[in-house]
């Protein structure tokens, strides 16, 4: 029985490493998650979010480079925002390039 792999690893770094990848760039699309709650379901979901973040954190620690594009301000249900989100991702990644190149140079000795 298969479900989306995000359940355990939204950033499957260990799987890539096991397949032989020697330099892994992890991209995350995170931001601060909610801490408020209105009912018992919300509380269970907060605890689940914490587990999810912990699992992602462990994956990220194994990556060689990490770029986080904070798209929290974009509502995932408003599809007409996709171009703005893409431009935001492009800008953030471009800003990270010098740092990435330095890291690659270090990795290549």
């Amino acid at each position: 029985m298969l479900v989306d792999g995000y359940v355990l690893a939204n950033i499957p770094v260990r799987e890539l490493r096991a397949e032989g990848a020697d330099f892994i760039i992890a991209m995350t699309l995170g931001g601060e998650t909610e801490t408020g709650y209105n009912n018992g379901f919300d509380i269970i979901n907060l605890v689940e979010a914490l587990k999810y973040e912990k699992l992602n954190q462990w994956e990220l620690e194994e990556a060689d480079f990490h770029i986080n594009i904070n798209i929290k301000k974009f509502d995932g249900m408003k599809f007409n925002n996709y171009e703005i989100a893409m431009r935001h991702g492009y800008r953030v990644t471009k800003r990270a390039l010098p740092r990435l190149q330095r890291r690659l140079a270090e990795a290549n000795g």
Partner: protein
Amino acid sequence: MAKGITLVLGGLGVKGIANIGVLQALVEHKVKIKRIVAAGIGALVGAQFALGRELEPLTEYFVRFFTENNRYLWGLEQFAGVVRSQKRRVIDSFNYFLRERLFCQANLKRISILPWELVEADIENVLDGASPSDLKIPLAVSAIDLKRKTEVLLEEENLKERLKAGIAFPGLFPPVHIGNRELVSSTLYCEVPLGMVGRAKRPIMAVDIPSELSMHKPGSVIEIMAHMDEVRTVVIKEKLLSRADIILILEGLRRFRWGSYKQIPQLISRARGETDKLLSSVDGPWKK
């Protein structure tokens, strides 16, 4: 390194009561305990032991409490007319039980299924006026701080509030407010509360009372979600267990369910036997 272990006790739901048997076996093997870290019902058991009190009265208390309150706790009357496979799932999975019970007209807007009034007097009775200075062994209770989104260890707080935070299962009891923290039990996060246990007080002995992952085909979205939650819990536990120096996996307790309140004496007895067997095969300076 000071002699004695840091003992980490967990266990989901009623299975935390098995720690009574674990502690009895540790005493028989003269294992010196310098600190207890506990979560869930394991925190109540750990507190009784850390206060230097007998554990048998606690067994009687748990049997009486769950027998008297079982219909109210499990909400079994809600499941009258529910198909048998669904009932079985409720018994198999704590996470599914919580979601199933919250997902009804009566509970959908509530913070929790149960009020603190149900257990507050009992916690006071168990503590019998004890204060933190009465602890013979330091006791840290593991909880999740919802505001800071992190696991915390409660080591200085009032004992009653500490224990309430330990058993504040998300959705079952309301969060416990201590200072500006909003605390719930950490057992749904990880069954063995190792996340915040530092390496300074080694060796760390972790007691794993494993849960059985249900493998049958899910019949609803709630069931799929609950199953995913359980898979995450297992992976987190496996990762955190690597931080312990000595791991006692009570494999024989896997078949017991989170709500097996009718099997409390068997649960304790089995835990005692398994711990005894495991301790016979390990040695260290922490044995007196």
